[in-house]
């Protein structure tokens, strides 16, 4: 390949991934993008001008060595590039797919000022898929056994990352997971068409190969408490990564009608329980002609696109602010639009109306207007009096966020929480108010992102290592 000048490189067009056509994909659960070919990846990688002070790295919560891994791509060293990423991010195949890049690494890329930013996420995804698909994944060196035991509660990105780092340091690591499959939101929440479950499985298998024990169907707080793990089961430290899994409802009339779901239930049925494949899988899911999803985040987009794939004729996003305030990843909103999702913005439901069989059939809404920014910095939506109207719906999915599940906190005396029930932990060491107990991910921050949860798992692993090694 001829050497290109910096200016020439900057002017190269941003390469998009090939993907399934909207008309086709809205009828299946297969992943939307096919990913880059090696040639496309190299072309995209050449766009990076290898900044001396790379702004992109500042935008990444775990400081992936972005220019370095991209340079390895230009040299066709794909597996090496993936390993470079893994020095700081152990879940690149996942983060490449689900990070909100447009607010993180890619937002800061200098190319973005005049052109389009380097497609860092797509490249991250490509190299780690390449490494996995070609069986180039190498087991890392594992330190000699320290004889220390660490329990990890929850197998979301926080728990998986902490487990991976701790096993490498020579500790004995056991993950306890409440559900029957490990992965947290990655398996029960995020749909197959956005994150194939085989990828999450291979991450878990990789940990198992390194020696991590995974105990599924173990609800901590019920079968064992944190204190029992520490005092009776001989664990030297515990990491709590139980996520934010308690669904919020709107507390408006009609919310318990048949056909009204929390996003957690709707997505768990479809993803974890494979209800989209009913009756080949046993768990049913209600299908609707007119499906309204309430909310504007990733969870809402995942729900509405799932509803489309289950056969909805009209799939609506009903959101109380305008599109610019939507917290979902730009790519998801774009994909949803392409697939024909209808956006009903500046609108909030006030009640659900049922038919004689107890099924939802209509939703009464009210129009909103935007007022002054609130503490979140987003404009506060204000109802416009008298603007009420009804829409026909047969399924409603409430995707307005989650709180933290109190099972562990309630059964662990001495664990301090804030007023939302999130565990209070030191932002650097993830230490909680209870000795030997560390926490990270959504259970500490409230619903956030995969990479922040993984980053917290990493920090905790470091601190847990120091803690158990200094313990006599």
């Amino acid at each position, binding site marked *: 390949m001829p050497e290109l000048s910096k200016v020439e490189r900057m002017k190269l067009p941003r390469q998009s991934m090939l993907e399934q056509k909207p008309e086709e994909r809205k009828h299946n659960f297969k992943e939307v993008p096919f990913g880059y070919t090696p040639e496309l990846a190299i072309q995209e990688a050449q766009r990076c001008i290898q900044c001396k002070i790379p702004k992109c790295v500042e935008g990444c919560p775990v400081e992936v060595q972005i220019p370095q891994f991209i340079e390895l791509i230009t040299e066709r060293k794909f597996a090496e590039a993936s390993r470079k990423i893994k020095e700081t991010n152990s879940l690149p195949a996942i983060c490449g797919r689900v990070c909100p890049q447009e607010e993180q690494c890619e937002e800061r890329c200098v190319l973005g000022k005049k052109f389009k930013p380097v497609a860092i996420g797509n490249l991250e995804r490509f190299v780690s898929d390449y490494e996995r698909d070609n069986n180039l994944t190498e087991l890392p060196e594992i330190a000699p056994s320290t004889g220390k035991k660490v329990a990890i509660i929850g197998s979301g990105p926080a728990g998986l990352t902490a487990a991976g780092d701790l096993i490498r340091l020579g500790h004995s690591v056991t993950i306890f997971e409440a559900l029957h499959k490990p992965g947290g939101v990655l398996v029960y929440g995020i749909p197959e068409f956005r994150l194939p479950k085989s990828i999450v499985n291979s991450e878990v298998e990789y940990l198992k190969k390194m020696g991590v024990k995974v105990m599924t169907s173990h*609800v901590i707080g019920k079968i064992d408490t944190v204190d029992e793990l520490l005092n009776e089961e001989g664990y030297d430290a515990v990491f709590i990564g139980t996520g934010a899994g308690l669904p919020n409802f709107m507390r408006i009339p009609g919310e318990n009608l048949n056909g009204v779901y929390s996003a957690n239930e709707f997505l768990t049925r479809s993803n974890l329980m494979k209800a989209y494949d009913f*009756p080949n899988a046993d768990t049913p899911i*209600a299908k609707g002609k007119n499906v309204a999803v309430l909310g504007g985040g990733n969870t809402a987009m995942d729900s509405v696109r799932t509803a489309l794939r289950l056969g909805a004729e009209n799939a609506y996003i009903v959101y109380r602010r305008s599109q610019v305030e939507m917290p979902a990843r730009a790519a998801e909103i774009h994909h949803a639009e392409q697939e024909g999702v209808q956006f009903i913005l500046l609108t909030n439901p006030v009640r659900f109306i049922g038919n004689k069989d107890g099924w939802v059939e209509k939703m009464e809404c009210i129009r909103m207007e935007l007022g002054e920014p609130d503490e979140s910095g987003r404009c506060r939506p204000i109802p416009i009096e008298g603007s009420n109207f009804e829409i026909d719906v047969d399924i409603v999915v409430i995707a307005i966020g989650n709180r933290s599940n109190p099972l562990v906190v309630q059964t662990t005396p001495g664990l301090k929480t804030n007023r939302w029930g999130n565990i209070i932990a030191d932002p650097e060491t993830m230490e909680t108010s209870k000795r030997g107990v560390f926490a990270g991910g959504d259970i500490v921050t409230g619903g956030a992102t995969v990479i922040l949860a993984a980053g917290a798992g990493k920090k905790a692993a470091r601190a847990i290592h120091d803690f158990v090694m200094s313990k006599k």
Partner: protein
Amino acid sequence: MVEVLEHYNIGQSNFKIVLAVPKLVKKAKPGQFVVLRVSENGERIPMSIADMDREAGTLTVIYQVIGKTTALLATVKPGEYIMDCVGPLGNPSHVDKKGKYMVIGGGIGIAPIHPVAQKARENGNEVYGIIGARTKELIFFEDEMRKACNRLYICTDDGSYGEKGFVSNVLQRLIDEGDKPDFILAIGPVPMMKAVCETTRPYSIPTWVSVNPIMIDGTGMCGACRVSVGGVTKFGCVDGPDFDGHLLDFDLLTSRLRMYIPQEREAMKKFQEEVHTPYVGPKS
């Protein structure tokens, strides 16, 4: 994977299954439940704890075959395995000292009422039991319940065994005779629990029931198990399964239980078309 140690038919479509879950039974308390998954891609089905042997590390569940998953469960032989058994879930029943403590079990609800009766008696209550079913063949745990209770009343809808009538009729008779309990826990089909609550309402006898809404995780994550108690939405799995029956919206519970009837029929039809060897072990 969880090993099935014993499995019996105990009359019509009722089965008793004994599972090896030593750790779980060490922690389990009367009133709690487990969630079973029989096969890969199988449904998660909640089942009450009917008995436990902490020494042997075994858990007994009594279930009725009513749909695909329970029909599939009925094909598993002793020595074989089911995918998972997670628990103990939910809150234990109130078994503290109340005085005259009445347990009422209807149909399959006789199963979970049994460990509650045992514990309530251990805690110094005078325990009365009423158990009832459609017909004689569906009465089980009679000996166990006689042991657990100070007094036991049995009734069947068709009069083939014990008194003829519903458990709520027996309850009304006892109240009329001046034998008023201080506390009642009633478990069984929704119409039965509702009838018991309507019977006790005029007398303000504290009456609790154990709800059986459709569940998935059983840990508070999905909200499938929503019930309304005194107008407030609660999650059956983590806030219950026992609630004050005088405050519970039974009609909502009934309606929500009917949510998937068309799909359940379809699943059962498909199951029956496939080749399965139903395992019907020796009668206990």
